[in-house]
């Protein structure tokens, strides 16, 4: 059984075909990256998995379960967590509250027990905090624990978003351009965290990226996308040297010059 499979997914907006029969497979515990020029459809794939868009055609399968038509809030229930290209944090809440919110899908209490803040609610709260602290330890967010997110620097906000996704205990992690806007040091940290997530936590990662160096460093498999169509798939070296991929990124003349 393949861990995650996208089969011939297609979606159009008006007359524009954003995704055209895109297919790919991700194995358990892999880091799979999607690259491509702007507008290629990379984030659209994420939005389809998250069910913000309805697919026109095709299927998405997580561990052989069809998740193409589930409700948007059921995606987290299925074990898929996500970060966003432009940060979508809960700005008025603290870092800790954001992380604890990541654990929402594990909630077992009902409103009535919460009004009385019963023992079980208390236990649940403490357990949430334990898990959140584990994430804080992993990502070195101790200094920012009690601060409002809107006051934090950009790099830290991105880290908090990653942390919130991790707090969910997901099976599959979708990261949308995690290294954009980060400086060299922060990108280094990120690549270490990626291997930590993969090896220590056993989470499968699906990545959208522009930073080629970063992508080469961390990925097991790569897929190049342009105009909604798959150009190439496979190990990073193969994909990056594929003539069509180079053409999409560097232009025809450069490819010709390379020979």
């Amino acid at each position, binding site marked *: 059984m393949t861990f995650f499979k996208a089969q011939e997914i297609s979606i159009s907006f008006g007359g524009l075909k954003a995704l055209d029969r895109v297919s790919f497979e991700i194995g358990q515990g892999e880091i799979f990256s999607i690259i491509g020029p702007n507008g290629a459809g990379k984030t659209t794939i994420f939005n389809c998995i998250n069910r913000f868009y309805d697919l026109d055609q095709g299927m998405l399968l997580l561990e052989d379960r069809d998740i193409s038509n589930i409700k948007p*809030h059921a995606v987290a229930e299925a074990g898929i967590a996500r970060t*966003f290209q432009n940060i979508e944090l809960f*700005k*008025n809440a603290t870092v800790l509250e954001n992380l604890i919110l990541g654990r929402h899908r594990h909630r077992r209490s009902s409103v009535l027990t*919460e009004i009385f803040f019963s023992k079980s609610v208390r236990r649940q709260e403490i357990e949430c905090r334990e898990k959140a602290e584990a994430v804080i330890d992993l990502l070195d967010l101790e200094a920012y624990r*009690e601060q409002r997110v809107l006051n934090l620097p950009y790099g830290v906000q991105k880290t908090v978003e990653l942390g919130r996704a991790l707090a*969910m205990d997901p099976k599959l992690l979708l990261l949308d351009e995690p290294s954009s806007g980060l400086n060299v040091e922060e990108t280094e940290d990120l690549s270490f965290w990626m291997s930590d997530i993969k090896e220590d936590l056993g989470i499968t990662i699906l990545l959208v990226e522009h930073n080629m160096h970063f992508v080469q460093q961390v990925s097991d498999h790569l897929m190049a996308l342009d105009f909604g169509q798959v150009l190439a798939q496979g190990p990073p070296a193969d994909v990056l040297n594929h003539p069509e991929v180079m053409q999409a990124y560097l232009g025809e003349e450069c490819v010709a010059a390379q020979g």
Partner: protein
Amino acid sequence: MRFLMRTAYQQDIRLFKYGSTLGWYVALVAGCLLMPLILDEYLLSQMTFICMYAIAAVGLMLLTGYTGQVSMGHAAFFAIGSYTSAILTSKGVPFLLALPAAGVMAALVGVVIGRPILHLTGMYLAIATMGFAFIVDEVLVRWESLTRGNMGFYVDPPVIGPWVLDTETRFYYLSLIVLILTLFAARNVLRSPTGRAMIAIRDSEVAAEAMGINLAQFKTIAFALSAFFTGIAGSLYAHKLFFINPESYTIFLSVELLAMVIIGGLGSLHGAVFGAAFFIFLPQIIIMTKDYLPTYVQNQTGLESAFFGLLIVLVMLFEPMGIYGRWLKTRFYFEMFPLYKKDSFKREKKYQKAERH
């Protein structure tokens, strides 16, 4: 400056952040309990009104301040609570049952109303709730067999066990206790997953859904909770006034509640109480300053309203974050003293990029 040192998770989920806060609140409650000894009947009755409106404001605050759903129709829930309680007690139902029943009835209506209009946002939602309030108002007027329409409904004073609560003092204690319970319940919800989900919905619906929060479900819960508390406040209101009719529950009341919540300080329970206090004290202040105005102006009937409107405008111009916002800023100043930076709260005057097309 105070630092928070915690060594156990238990300390993090406590009701009060610092131990000293608990002390202050105990003193406050003690002070409130002693009020009947200090204040005369009139002022005590005003305090009772503050309690009642504060409970309703807590309801609205949960919906608007914490979940971000604007409601301009909360007078409807207030009315439903009033009439439910009045009708039930007139049929012999004991007050201690009628009070929560009023809340439950309002909550049920809240669910019925909330469900279809959940996916509305901003102004659309506000106007839809306003419409709903008009409809409820009309129903109360027309359904004469139940509500006696415009002729009004006479309400019995509440009876709890051996006590008949027909004095100011007794009713004050009742309202105070209900307010404290309400605040406690609201605080509990807010420090639980439901409360956090509500804040998540306010700050980013997209991210909330990605975290597994069922928007429809939690918005409905927010509506129901909000209506519940407002309904309870309505019940108290009915039993205090002894006589209710649909005219007391107009769009004015809805707007007043909304203004209470905003002027008090959106997004805080303190704001609900401050807002209620502000709106009850305001007419008193106006009446007092009236004496200093020239006689011609003094005798105008519209003066209070005009002053009222003007004061609301001035308060918001002076402190858009509301009374609680100003309180926080002042406290921050003293906490930081003498290292307070003058522009700590300066808001960048910015133009907005419209998210509409």
